[in-house]
Each structure stands twice: as structure tokens, then as C-alpha cells.
């Protein structure tokens, strides 16, 4: 039997061009407010110095946006939090740039694009932007990226008895790569997970355990109205959890971790059960 992994969801960050920010996303997806009018929003890596902010690729901009949002909601100093960054594909536009350049004029490869091509670029810029010297990691597990990232976040939180920051994101593919690594638009979600006993009643708790049983390889589809609000992005893997957090009651989900193992997650909505 494996340990039960429990944590308070102390902060939530969310970003997509039509739902730029967790408060907007929560109200719109819960059906409490109409989608914001006006043109789609742009994420800005506001934590970074102006030169770096201008040059920040979308991967970095959306990851830092949701990470900052989750930390603000949790009222926690980002410098105190170990961080786990998860992305299915990493920076697809930079991969497209690198592969195109290598096929034609390899000697002209841009040094900035090259160092931004590492899978941990967002993690690196986050630690630089906040001055955080805590451990930081960057993971990928293809269609199971969100689940494996969430597992590692919960494991780090419980093993270290420390709150952690979990950030999951993907961007749209560009060029010939789109045929084999399909992903559209921008989508990012972040959680601050706190395993310590809480003094204040929390809005949500998350309880998970790893089960040695196969899970379906694809996540459950999101509610149909969401298709117009959220792009066909590879990080739609986070939608079951997003649905749980925008719903009113408790909910459970099974997320695939490997060919014979799954993460059984229960989200407990303490706020819906009235004051503690």
C-alpha cells in the first residue's frame, strides 16, 4: 500500500487567452459570469527584468503568470517554495526554430534561443525572477505529464513537509512539428500545495494515492461549453482537476501515471460544506 498524499490547495493559478487569471476562469467555468469581452489577453512575465521580459517566450510568460498568481493567492513567498514544472512538449516554437535553422544555416543558431530551448527554461526564469534558491525541477510524461507532475509535487510536499509550487503548461505547435506534436493556443495552471495542518479552514483539500491498476489513457472530456473557451492545448490534461475546482461539491478522478498505475485524486470542497 502506498502512502496517502494529502495537501491543502493554498493557491491556484490559471491562464489562457480567453480566461486570463484564476478568478475569471473560476467564475466563467462555474457559469457565474460571462466570458470577458474584448480581445484575447497576453501574458507578461512581469517578474523578469525588462530585457528578459521582452524576450521571454510564451512558455516562460504563461508559466510565470500562473506561478505568480498561485503564490499570491496562497500569500506565500515564492522564495520559500520548491517548484515542479511540467510540460508535455516544452517549447514547440523554439524546437521548430532550432530544427529549421539546423536544416539550413546551423552556424547561425541563436544562443538565446538555444538556452531557452531547455525543458527547464520556465523553471530557471522563475527562480531567477523571484530569487528562489529552493530546488526546482522540470518534467515530461507525454499524455500523462499533468498526473506525473502532480504526483511529484505531492510527494515533494509530503516527503519534505513543506508547501510546494506546481506549474503545468503547454503552448501551440508551429511549423511541421504540429503534425506529430499537436497542441494549440496557450494553457497553464498552477497550484500551491501545503501538506501541513492548516490553521484556517481551506477552500479545497486534495487527497491522492497511487494505485497499481490501469487507468484510461485519455482524460475525461471537459464539459462541451468549455471547448469555445479553451484551446485544443496539450495541457488539457489538467481539465479534470480544473472541473473539480470550479464545481460545487467533492469530486474524484483517476489519472494515468504509467501503463499499470494511476493516481486516484479526490478534491474536497470544504467551502461547500459550510464553515468548519
Amino acid at each position, binding site marked *: 500500500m502506498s502512502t496517502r498524499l494529502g495537501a491543502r490547495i493554498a493557491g491556484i493559478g490559471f491562464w489562457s487567452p480567453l480566461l486570463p487569471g484564476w478568478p475569471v476562469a473560476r467564475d466563467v467555468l462555474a457559469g457565474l459570469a460571462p466570458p470577458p469581452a474584448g480581445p484575447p489577453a497576453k501574458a507578461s512575465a512581469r517578474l523578469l527584468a525588462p530585457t528578459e521580459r521582452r524576450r521571454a517566450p510564451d512558455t516562460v510568460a504563461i508559466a510565470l503568470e500562473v506561478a505568480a498568481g498561485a503564490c499570491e493567492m496562497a500569500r506565500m513567498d515564492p522564495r520559500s517554495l520548491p517548484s515542479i514544472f511540467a510540460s508535455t512538449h516544452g517549447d514547440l516554437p523554439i524546437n521548430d526554430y532550432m*530544427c529549421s535553422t539546423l536544416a539550413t544555416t546551423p552556424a547561425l543558431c541563436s544562443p538565446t534561443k538555444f538556452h531557452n530551448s531547455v525543458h527547464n527554461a520556465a523553471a530557471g526564469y522563475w527562480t531567477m525572477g523571484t530569487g528562489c*534558491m529552493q530546488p526546482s525541477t522540470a*518534467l515530461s510524461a507525454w499524455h500523462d505529464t499533468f498526473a506525473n507532475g502532480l504526483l511529484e509535487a505531492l510527494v515533494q510536499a509530503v516527503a519534505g513537509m513543506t508547501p510546494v509550487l506546481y506549474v503545468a503548461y503547454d503552448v501551440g505547435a508551429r511549423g511541421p512539428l504540429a503534425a506529430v506534436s499537436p497542441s494549440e493556443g496557450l494553457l497553464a495552471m498552477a497550484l500551491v500545495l501545503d501538506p501541513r495542518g492548516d490553521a484556517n479552514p481551506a477552500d479545497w483539500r486534495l487527497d491522492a494515492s497511487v494505485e497499481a491498476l490501469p487507468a484510461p489513457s485519455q482524460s475525461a472530456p471537459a464539459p462541451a461549453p468549455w471547448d469555445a473557451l479553451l484551446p485544443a492545448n496539450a495541457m488539457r490534461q489538467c481539465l479534470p482537476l480544473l472541473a473539480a475546482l470550479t464545481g460545487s461539491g467533492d469530486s474524484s478522478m483517476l489519472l494515468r501515471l504509467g501503463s499499470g498505475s494511476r493516481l486516484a485524486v479526490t478534491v474536497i470542497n470544504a467551502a461547500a460544506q459550510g464553515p468548519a
Partner: protein
Amino acid sequence: MIPLAVTAFTATSAVGNGNAAHAAALRQGRSGLRRNDFTAQPLDTWIGRVAGLEALDWPQAFARHDCRNNRLAWLGLQQDGLRDAVEDAIRRHGAARVALVLGTSTSSIGATEEAYARLGVDGSFPPDLRRPEVHTPHSLGLFVAHALGIAGPCVTVATACSSSAKVFAQAERLLRLGIADAALVGGVDTLCGSVLFGFNSLELVSREPCRPFDVARSGISLGEAAGFALLERDGAAAAWLIGHGESSDAHHMSSPHPQGLGARLAIGDALARAGIAPGDVDYLNLHGTASQKNDEVEAALIAELFPATLAASSTKGWTGHTLGAAGILEAVICLLALREGFRPGTLNTTTLDPQCGPQLRLQGEYTPVGIAMTQSFGFGGNNCVLVFAQGARR
């Protein structure tokens, strides 16, 4: 921390396939570096290339995973009884109770590069490379899980050059919390255009075989490698993982913190977790890439933190810098130092940088090694330090 048993381990790099080839090359001072003959327009540099990958007999069952990186993974898995050890662990614990945590920096981006070099007139991928499995960073994890029948959590860590060191820390937490009963960790990185021309664009690539910590060093030699280690709570241990430490520099994407603050935190964390003092470490395998900046910062840090009795060296002169595979390759070199009672020196280096303390050794030496440590520092300021010991000291 409670030590973890390393019940099997292996490495394959430019110096040869498997542990015996590495031990012999380290003793004999035989480098695996050669003039670069990789990519259509090879850069003027030296590389650590693994021979024979192109001609490897590739099983039809793995056709959709075929690429240079997975070929190197497969070659690596054949060495030192690693596959048998994993099969045995699966038999004892069940496939779903074995986790797979692998590190890589570029995974099989070489296959994507090849597709871009052979695009159809309509700009589409050539039919033989329309395989999504090899164009994802998780290509390595997908292949190894399939090849070995591992059914537990399966994840790829990609934190540049610390990737396959961090897998030990991640696996240790999974075993400590009972999420898994065994974990196969390791990493594979292969030469590709992205790293050769990318590091060249940063002016970090040497025109000669790399000379770590030499006063006249001129940059890195890139290499490729595969390595694996099987971790369990107990068992017939070849050695024990007794500590790990991780940190971030919070300084720069491609340059280390000038005072090595992040590295210092990771070293401190690893020693504390192991419950040992700096003077307890018998051999330290350094990151030692032979880049100006890394070696300058790392040399000063070691001179300050460790007693003169420590033997520290960089083995990049044998293998080149194998990037996302450096963590596991150098962990295996530490495990070999424990097993063979041999502390490797530093190859190709003639005159040490004056920053270096007496710890930095050019010559290898036969002496019992009780505790060996390795440090890996990646782009994005990502640091990881591992400590291994002969005994568990419980």
C-alpha cells in the same frame, strides 16, 4: 536519510560499453574523445561518440521508438545484467510497483532534426519519421517502459545537465513514501545538431579535446552516454545512495552563480542528508566541464569547502560532457570508484588553474574509497549533488 540499495548499475559512453570498459579506461587514462564527424557540416571540435549505434540490430517490436537516443538506451540496457536485474525486481515487486524515472536534456530531438532536414515538398515530415513517440521529450521514458515492461509511474526529468542526477532524489522520495518498491533511474543523451551548434553559439565548445581545470582550458567537448541504476529499499547492494541535495542558482540561464551559492546549498543539503562531514568524502567527481566559468567557480568552491585529503577530479576528458546523461554517468563512475578502490584523475589537463586547491587530482590512485560524491550543474541554474557509500551505515 535512510540509505537506498543500488542493486544494479551500468554505463555506456564513448570509452566503451558497460562498467568494465569504464573502469579499465579510467585506470589506463584512455580517452574516448575523437575529432567531430557528426552532422553534415561538422564543427571543428572533439566529441565523445558511442560507436556502432547506427548498425545496432533494432528489434521490430520497438520500430516506433527507433532513433539514436533510444538505440543508445537499448545498448546501455544490455550491459552488466541490468535487464535481468529489472526483470527480477518486476518479478519480486510487480511491474506496477516499479517506477521509471529517467533524465535527458534533448531526448530524441535528433530525430526531429532529421525530419526537418528531409521535409517533403509540401513541408511535411518524411513518412518514416511520422512517429509522435520520438518527437516528445518523454521519448526515452516511453521506450524504456515499453522495452522492460515497467508499469509504475513513468516520467522524464529534463533539467539540462543535472537531469539524470535529480532522478536519484525523485526516486528516493517515491521509495521513502512507499509509492514504489523499486525504481529504475538513469539517463540517456545523444549527440545532435541542437547541442553541437547550440553550445557553439554560446562559444563554449573547444577546438581541442577538453582540459578540465587547466589554466589554458578552451571549452567543452560534447559527448553521449546511457546509464542506469536500480534502486530498492534493501537487497544485495553494490553500494548505497546515502545522500542527495538539490538547489537553484537564481542567477542566470547559462552561467553559474559567480560565488557558487546554489552549488554550495546543494552540497550542504547532500552532506546533511547523508549525515557526514566534508572530510568524510573520499572521492568527489566534479561537474568540471572545462568551460571557463564552470571550472573557475567550482575550483574555488572545492578549495574552500573540502580538506586537502579529498581527491576530486573531472572525468569529462574521457567521455566529453554528456549533458543530461552526465549525472548518471558520473554516479556510475563513483560507484566504480567504491567497487574498485580507485580514484580517477583528470585527463588531458597539464597545468591546473591557480584557483584549484590540493583536492584537484590529475593522477588516478588506488586506495580504498568508502564514500564518493558527484555534482551536476545545469542550465537554468539547476544543481544536484549525490553521495554514495560502500556500506549503509544504518
